[in-house]
């Protein structure tokens, strides 16, 4: 049964990209364990506003685990201690009375901090713009059933396509690598006949952009897969490596 708990939240405060930043600890009383983690932060902000202080800035939007907007390192884990969920799906029943909860932003060279817990993830958009698509214009496409796709392939493509672009993989990686994110898109499109036409060009362009933007290399640590809220598998990274090498050898 859910009950009310008293906690302390130790939050990273940073007033802009150039500010040095520091932790501040705030006590919170009578937090219902039925509340979500972000509702707990709402309560903290309500408390700060009532005290005339500036609320903590954090990204969030759909609050149902699909938009990829929420982030946060919670007690040393991207999206908190539970596996397979986003921060907005984390609930306070995961914490105990008296806990001190440490909340930090994504920390990675690829994602500069904007303010407090909010970071800039436009690098992901740039990687997508480099080649994360099938080059078709609107209209003039064949009937949807013209090309049968084996169910297994469609399901594997869907597994990869489930990526929400939150950046937890980068934040979890000691090298700050974006390989899981890139490989998910490359895999999805390489598994489908519609995407195969441009597979070589795509793998090269997305990897090149990823490197250019300062993301690190993959050393097969596997932290990304463990922390991914959508359980995207690192077999996608293996597929990306194959796609990339095949494309390079074909040059």
């Amino acid at each position, binding site marked *: 049964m859910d009950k009310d708990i008293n906690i302390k939240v130790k939050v990273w405060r940073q007033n802009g990209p150039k500010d040095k930043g520091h932790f501040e600890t705030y006590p919170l009383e009578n937090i219902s364990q039925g509340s979500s983690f972000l509702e707990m932060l709402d309560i903290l902000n309500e408390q700060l506003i009532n005290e005339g202080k500036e609320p903590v800035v954090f990204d969030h*939007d759909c609050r149902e685990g699909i938009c990829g907007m929420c982030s946060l390192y919670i007690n040393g884990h991207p999206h908190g201690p539970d596996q397979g969920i986003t921060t907005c799906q984390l609930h306070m029943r995961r914490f105990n009375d008296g806990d001190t909860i440490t909340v930090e932003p994504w920390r990675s060279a690829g994602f500069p901090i904007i303010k407090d817990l909010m970071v800039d993830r436009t690098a992901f958009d740039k990687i997508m713009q480099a080649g994360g698509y099938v080059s078709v214009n609107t209209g003039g496409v064949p009937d949807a059933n013209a090309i049968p796709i084996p169910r297994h392939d469609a399901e594997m*493509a869907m597994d990869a396509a489930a990526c929400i672009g939150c950046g937890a993989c980068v934040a979890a990686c000691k090298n700050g690598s974006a390989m899981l994110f890139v490989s998910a898109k490359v895999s999805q499109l390489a598994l489908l006949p519609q995407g195969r036409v441009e597979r070589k060009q795509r793998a090269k362009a997305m990897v090149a952009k990823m490197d250019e933007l300062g993301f690190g290399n993959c050393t097969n640590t596997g932290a990304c897969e463990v922390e991914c809220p959508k359980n995207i598998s690192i077999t996608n990274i293996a597929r990306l490596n194959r796609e990339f090498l095949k494309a390079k050898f074909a040059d």
Partner: protein
Amino acid sequence: MNKINSKIPEGPLAEKWTNYKNHQKLVNPANKRRLDIIVVGTGLAGASAAASLGELGFNVLNFCIQDSPRRAHSIAAQGGINAAKNYPNDGDSVYRLFYDTIKGGDYRAREANVYRLAEVSNSIIDQCVAQGVPFAREYGGLLDNRSFGGAQVSRTFYARGQTGQQLLLGAYSALSRAVHRKQVKLYTRYEMVDLVIIDGRARGIIARNLVTGKLERFAAHAVVIATGGYGNTFFLSTNAMTSNGSAAWQCYKRGAYFANPCMAQIHPTCIPVHGEFQSKLTLMSESLRNDGRIWVPKKLEDAQAIREGKLKPTDIREEDRDYYLERRYPAFGNLVPRDVASRAAKERCDAGYGVGNTGLAVYLDFADAIHRLGRDVVEARYGNLFQMYEKIVDDNPYETPMMIYPAIHYTMGGIWVDYELMTSIPGLFAIGEANFSDHGANRLGASALMQGLADGYFVLPYTIQNYLADQINVPRFKTDAPEFDTVEKEINDRIDRLMSIRGKHSVDHIHKELGHVMWDFVGMGRDAEGLRTAIEKLKEVKKDFWTNLRIPGNKETLNVELEKALRLADFIEIGELMAHDALDREESCGGHFRLEHQTPEGEALRHDDQFSYVSCWEYRGEDQDPVMYKEPLNYEFVVRQQRNYKS
């Protein structure tokens, strides 16, 4: 003379769109490059429109409130997208999709618009497959379909419980390609704060850079609003936290008519409210009603014992359960349209049969489905939804029935548009949920995705050319025009006024007050007395807002509370207009249920002789009542009937 001209093309229903396309004006490729189009929003409608217009050669500026276009709230749509492909050979057709949508909307939508929507639906599926959207497939490799409410065929295409995500990522990838090819310039973390009109035409916007807090000016030959609905007027809804009605409201205040504001959809299957600090409600996909059975206890004493925690749902014997949808609507059963299912749940709870500790919940039970299909099949179909439910409620829906209750989900009302999707301001267009056009008084499940993509991929790229063809000699606008100065000053004054209130309540505090008034008096069941009460109470909320609001920080910086305050100021006024419209419409239709107007069985009772019109509201100034014009809905092709889902 009637001020409303919907510009419906002549001719038989099935030929109108073809005739329109054959005779509309086009812009040649060399001229397209000289024309700028602003698209506000990057959801299904906005992203598909921006990408398609960019591909055609127009110069597109696309604005997005989040950090990436991929986060727009279309992404949260779960169940699927309708199309009239008739792949299952179960009797579907363009006409039948049209008819179901018109009927589902309780005969308050335009026939010609809805027919066009059904007509282009098939192209959407083709387009998405070509983009690499991984729709669910049969073992033979062809596309799979499932059923949704209000239909007797299986016409819904889906990608697990994440169809909206996959369609949006498809549109986002097309948009990303257009950005790469410099056909679209993307502005992320920008929020439109006003519309700029020059010589009676929409010529630009002012947007607030949410990172710097600065106001910036953007000019164009046409402006497209694709900013979604205003469901967050109710505070608690299934919409995302930043979903708001402000762009639409700014257009209204600059002269665009607002149509059918009272028509809001209440979705029957959401996770019930748990406490006062709840920030939003989570939807459980309508697709669950394919296999889940909805019930409450038959006996009041059982319901009471459940509420007190003395009995569990699994303790209630089969003969003591009331599967009220199957009982009341044998032909459609658990798959009645959303408005009908929501009202039926409220009726049972109001009568004392509700469950959960608040009594405001009903059961959605999968025991039969698990028995019939096996747990594996149920898990394959709904696994992610079950997981989502378990995370929030801490109950395992494989073992105990889910609890659900209706919540605000979608707004059918919105900016008035003609057949070309142009508003009453020349050069201003509205697409997707932001307009009012296709769903009448109630939207069917899996039709929002269809409409958003229809507007963006296949309708607007045609119709906007009919307008822009006359604009090819108009040079690019400069943003130092006096019209920009005036509008920017007005916004700056408004922001200063908000910052100077320095009261004691947070934005959320007042937003919750607004939400309570809306849900209690402008919610699922409305009557004249309650609506008048709402109008009075909303005046108090407005006064509280403008005297007691507290916004910390400064205006020219990242200031989330200021963003929320600007939106809330508009939500309060939207709420007022919703109440006025609901009071005016003395009939029940679709999601608008006036308690005074129901059949002896408690079904919605329309009055076609008096209310067969779209209410189009015109803004007349701060302290003046808006004026309402009527766009008559002349049904030429469909015979209107009392909606019947019983037999």
